[in-house]
C-alpha cells in the first residue's frame, strides 16, 4: 500500500492505483475523458495531466501508478495551463451545437470548459465535418462531429460485451467512431455506451428530444426487470407534463454498485419502464357485480373484500403472491395469511417462455424479488396448496376466494383455458396489481397497486442482497402500495400485528427484520445505497 502526497495531503492507496483514483482519495478531482475505471487505459484525451516532483513534464494521471513517496500536484499553474490547452484542442472542431444537443446540461465538454477552459476561441477556419444523427443500433444515435474520440464506447464493446461492433476509422482529424461493416450496435447492453460517452456523440434514441435534462428529477431505484436488481437512477419529468409525451418516467440510468451491476444496465432493463405511464395501468379500485365493473373508492372496495374474506373458511381462500412485490408487501401478506389461517399461499407461477440469461448481468428469473419471497416465507403453510394446487382447487370449485397479486396468469406458463376456468369457477376473484390483464378484466374486485417507482421498499436479489428503492413519483391515480392495502385489510379484520399499523415501508421492514432471521440485524436505513446481504 504505497503512501503518497497529493496537493500536500498524504494518502495511502492500494498497490496499482492510478493517480486519478489516488487524487480522488485525496479529495482532488482530475478531469478526464478517456479514462473509465471499468475499461483499459487509453491515454488518449491527455486531459488528466498532473505534475509529479522530479519528473520534468506533466504526466497523464490515468497511466501513472501511485508509488511510495510520490509527490503529486494537480493544480499547478502548468497543469491548469495544460488543461486549458487540452480543452481548446477538444473543442476546435466541435460544432458547439449545445442548444440542440441532448447532452447539454450533462456534457463534460460544457462542464470542463467552465471549470478548466474559459479560453478565448481562436479557431477561425472551417471545422471538420462528419456524419450527424446516424442511428447505429436500435437505441443509440451517433453524432460524429460531437465525438471527442475518447474510445470509451469502442473499449466497452471490446472489453465488456466482447461484441466489438465499434471502431475508430480514418485518422488524424478525420478520425471517426463507426460500425464495422455488416454490424449494428445491438448487443444486450448497447445503452451503456450512451452513459459512458462523456459528450453528445452517442445519445439515446428513446430519450432524445423528450425532456431537457435540467428539468429532470432523480431518485435512487432498482431495476425490477430480473433477479439481479441492478441499481438505477430513475429520472422523472414531474414539472413539464407537456414534455416527454406526458410520461412521468423519462429514463433509467445505471447507478454504481460494485457487488451487483458495477456501472452497467442491460437494455431490457433500461427501456423496460414504459408500462409505468401506460394506459393499461389500473388507477381506481373496481367493483364488478354481474356484468360491467364500476370504479369505487377504497372505502367501498376494501370493506367489500373484508366481508368476503370473513365469509370464507381458511381453506377456501387462495393467495397468489408475486415476486414483483417488495419484501414489505410480502411480509404484510404473510402476516395477513397467518391471521386468517390461510395456508394456500405461494408466489411461484411459471413463465410462459423461459427467460434468457447470460454470464454477465441478465438473469433468467425476470422477477426482482423471488429470493425475498422465499426468505419472507411466502409459501404454502402446513397442508396448504402451492401455486399450481391453488389454481387446480379454484378450477375444481374448492375455493371461494382467489386473491391474485400482479400475475398476468393468462399469459403465464399455465394453459390459458385452465386459468380462465379457475377464474370462472371461483365465487370471488380479487386482482391486485399495477396493470390490467385478462384476470383483472374478469375479477370481482380490482385493487390498483402503486408501481415500484411510486413507492419505496426493498427487494432481495438472487445473491441475497437486500436493497432499497426510493419513491420517484407519486402513485398513479388512486393506486396504493401493496403493503398499505394489506394493512387496511388486516386492521379491518382485527389483526393486531404492528405491521398493519405501519405508516411507512420502513416500519414494515424493521418488523420483518425483527421476525425473520435472514434479515436479522438489518435496519431499513442501514441498508444504505448499496444494500446488505441476507444471512441464509
Amino acid at each position, binding site marked *: 500500500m504505497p503512501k503518497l502526497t497529493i496537493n500536500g495531503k498524504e494518502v495511502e492507496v492500494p498497490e496499482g492505483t492510478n493517480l486519478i483514483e489516488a487524487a480522488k482519495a485525496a479529495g482532488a478531482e482530475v478531469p478526464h475523458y478517456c479514462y473509465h475505471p471499468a475499461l483499459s487505459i487509453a491515454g*488518449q484525451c491527455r486531459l488528466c495531466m498532473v505534475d509529479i516532483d522530479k519528473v520534468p*513534464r*506533466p504526466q497523464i494521471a490515468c497511466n501513472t501508478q501511485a508509488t511510495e513517496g510520490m509527490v503529486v500536484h494537480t493544480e499547478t499553474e502548468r497543469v491548469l495551463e*495544460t488543461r486549458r490547452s487540452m480543452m481548446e484542442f477538444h473543442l476546435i*472542431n466541435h460544432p458547439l451545437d449545445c442548444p440542440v444537443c441532448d447532452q447539454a446540461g450533462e456534457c463534460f465538454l460544457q462542464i470542463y470548459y467552465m471549470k478548466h477552459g474559459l479560453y478565448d476561441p481562436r479557431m477561425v*477556419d472551417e471545422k471538420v465535418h462528419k456524419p450527424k444523427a446516424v442511428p447505429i443500433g436500435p437505441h443509440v444515435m451517433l453524432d460524429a462531429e460531437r465525438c471527442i474520440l475518447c474510445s470509451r464506447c469502442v473499449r466497452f464493446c471490446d472489453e465488456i460485451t466482447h461484441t466489438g461492433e465499434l471502431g475508430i476509422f480514418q*485518422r*488524424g*482529424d478525420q478520425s471517426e467512431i463507426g460500425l464495422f461493416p455488416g454490424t449494428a450496435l445491438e448487443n444486450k447492453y448497447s445503452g451503456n455506451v450512451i452513459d459512458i460517452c462523456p459528450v453528445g456523440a452517442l445519445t439515446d434514441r428513446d430519450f432524445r428530444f423528450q425532456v431537457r435534462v435540467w428539468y429532470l428529477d432523480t431518485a435512487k431505484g432498482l431495476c425490477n426487470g430480473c433477479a439481479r436488481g441492478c441499481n438505477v437512477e430513475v429520472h422523472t419529468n414531474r414539472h413539464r407534463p407537456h414534455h416527454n409525451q406526458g410520461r412521468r418516467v423519462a429514463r433509467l440510468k445505471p447507478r454504481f454498485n460494485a457487488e451487483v451491476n458495477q456501472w452497467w444496465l442491460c437494455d431490457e432493463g433500461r427501456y423496460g419502464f414504459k408500462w409505468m405511464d401506460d394506459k393499461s395501468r389500473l388507477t381506481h379500485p373496481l367493483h364488478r357485480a354481474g356484468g360491467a365493473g364500476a370504479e369505487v373508492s377504497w372505502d367501498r372496495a376494501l370493506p367489500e373484500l373484508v366481508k368476503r374474506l370473513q365469509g370464507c373458511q381458511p381453506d377456501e381462500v387462495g393467495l397468489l403472491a408475486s415476486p414483483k412485490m417488495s419484501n414489505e408487501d410480502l411480509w404484510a401478506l404473510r402476516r395477513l395469511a397467518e391471521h386468517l389461517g390461510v395456508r394456500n399461499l405461494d408466489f411461484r407461477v411459471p413463465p410462459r417462455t423461459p427467460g434468457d440469461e447470460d454470464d454477465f448481468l441478465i438473469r433468467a428469473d425476470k422477477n426482482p424479488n423471488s429470493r425475498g419471497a422465499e426468505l419472507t416465507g411466502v409459501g404454502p403453510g402446513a397442508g396448504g396448496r402451492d401455486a399450481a394446487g391453488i389454481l387446480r382447487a379454484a378450477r375444481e370449485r374448492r375455493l371461494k376466494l382467489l386473491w391474485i397479486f400482479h400475475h398476468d396468469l393468462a399469459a403465464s406458463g399455465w394453459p390459458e383455458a385452465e386459468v380462465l376456468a379457475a377464474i370462472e369457477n371461483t365465487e370471488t376473484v380479487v386482482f391486485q396489481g399495477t396493470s390490467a390483464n385478462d384476470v383483472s378484466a374478469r375479477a370481482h374486485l380490482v385493487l390498483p397497486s402503486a408501481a415500484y417507482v411510486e413507492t419505496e421498499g426493498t427487494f432481495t436479489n438472487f445473491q441475497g442482497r437486500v436493497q432499497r428503492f426510493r419513491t420517484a413519483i407519486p402513485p398513479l391515480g388512486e393506486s396504493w402500495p401493496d403493503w398499505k392495502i394489506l394493512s387496511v385489510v388486516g386492521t379491518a379484520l382485527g389483526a393486531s400485528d404492528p405491521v398493519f399499523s405501519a405508516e411507512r415501508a420502513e416500519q414494515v421492514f424493521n418488523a420483518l427484520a425483527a421476525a425473520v432471521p435472514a434479515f436479522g440485524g438489518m435496519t431499513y436505513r442501514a441498508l444504505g445505497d448499496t444494500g446488505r446481504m441476507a444471512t441464509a
Partner: protein
Amino acid sequence: MAERILTRNFDVKDAHTLRVYRDGGGYQGWEKAKGMEPAAIAEEVKKSNLRGLGGAGFPTGVKWGFIPKGSTAPRYLVVNADEGEPGTFKDRYLMERDPHALIEGMLIAARAIGSHLGFIYIRGEYVQPWRIVSAAVKEASEAGLLGKNIQGTGFDFEIVVHRGAGAYICGEETGLISSLEGKKGWPKVKPPFPAVKGAFGQPTIVNNVETLACLPHIITRGAEWFAGLGTKTQGGTRLYSVSGHVVRPGLVEAPVSVTLRQIIYDHCGGIPGGRALKAVVPGGSSAAILTPDEIDIPMDVDGPKSKGSMIGSAGIIVMDETVSIPDALMVVARFYAHESCGQCTPCRESTGWIYKISHRIVEGKGRKEDLDTILDVAKRGAGTTICAFYDGAVGPYISYIEKFRSEFEELIRTSDHA
C-alpha cells in the same frame, strides 16, 4: 574518400544474392558472433558507440539491456523497415542492394538478446525492397543460416517478412508493433515499454535496418575500430539521404563526424545554377530547419542538436533561394495532418488546424495573429502526446516560422485580411 562500409556492396553486381554477399566477406560477423556469449556481443555493441539510426539515436546496446533480466518469455526482434520520414531513403538502398547485411545483423542481434523469431516490418510502398528481402530470407533459410539449430549451434532463429500498409505512424516503434499485431497502427501508451511488453505482449527489441546492418562490421572488425570512425558519442559511418537543390542528390556514406557543409558542398557538389542556399533540413522533415550559417556542424547525434534541430533519420533536404518557406511549411503541415493517427487529442486536432492556417496564409488570406497562433498551439501541444509524432511536427512548425518570419509576414501583410 573514406572507406565505404555500409555501401561497400552497393555497386557490386548481384550483391543481393547469398553467393556474392559471401564472396565479399559476408556472414563473417555471424561466424564470429555464433561462438560468442550473448552478453559479450551486447558489450561489444555498447563499446562501439552504435546509436539507433532510425531517428531517435538511442544507444543500441543499452536498448537491448532493457529486456528484463531472467525473463523466460519469448523475445522478438523487430526490424523497423518502415522508413517513412520524408527525405529519407537509406534503408531502401540497403534492402535492395545488400539485404543479407540486414539478415546477418539480425542474426547477431537475435543471438545477443536471445530471440528466436524476428519480424521485418517493411513499409507498404516498398514493393521492390520487400521482394528482394523476402528472396534473401528464403535463400538464407535454404542455406541453413536461418531456422532450427543453425549450423549446429543449437541456436534457432527465423524471420517473418511483414508488409505495412503505408502509414507514417507505423514507423513509430509501438505503432509498428500494433500494426504488426494486426491492429490499427496506433502507438501504445508507455509504460510498459516494448522491451518489457512489446509485440504480442512479449519483450521486444525494435531496431532500424541501418542499425542492424552495422553489426556485422562491428563484430568482424571490433568495437574500437567502429567507435573510432565517428565522434566521441557516436561510432561508425552513416547513410545520409540528400535531396533537393544540390548538384548530385542521392545517398552519401560518411563518418558521422562529417559536417553538413561538407555533405552539401563536397559530397553533393553544392547548389546548382549558382544559386544561393536558403535552408537545410538536416534529419528528415521532423527536424527543425537550419539556415545557411548553421551548417558547420558535425552530422552526428549531437551536431544538429546544438542548433536546436536533430539528426533524426539523416534525411537532408536542401532548399535554395527559389523556395518559399511558407509554401514548404504548408506542404510539411499537410503531411503531418494527413499522417497523425488521431489517437491523442492535441496531435489529432492541431495538426489539421495548423495545416489550415498555413494553407490560408499561402492562399493570401493570412491574419496577423496567425503566426503567433501556430507557435502557441505548437508549443502547447509539444510533449503532451503518447508518441513523438507531434514533437516531430512541432520541429518544422516552430523553426520555419521563427527563422523565416519576415517571409510569412510579407504574405500576411498583403492578404485579404490585412
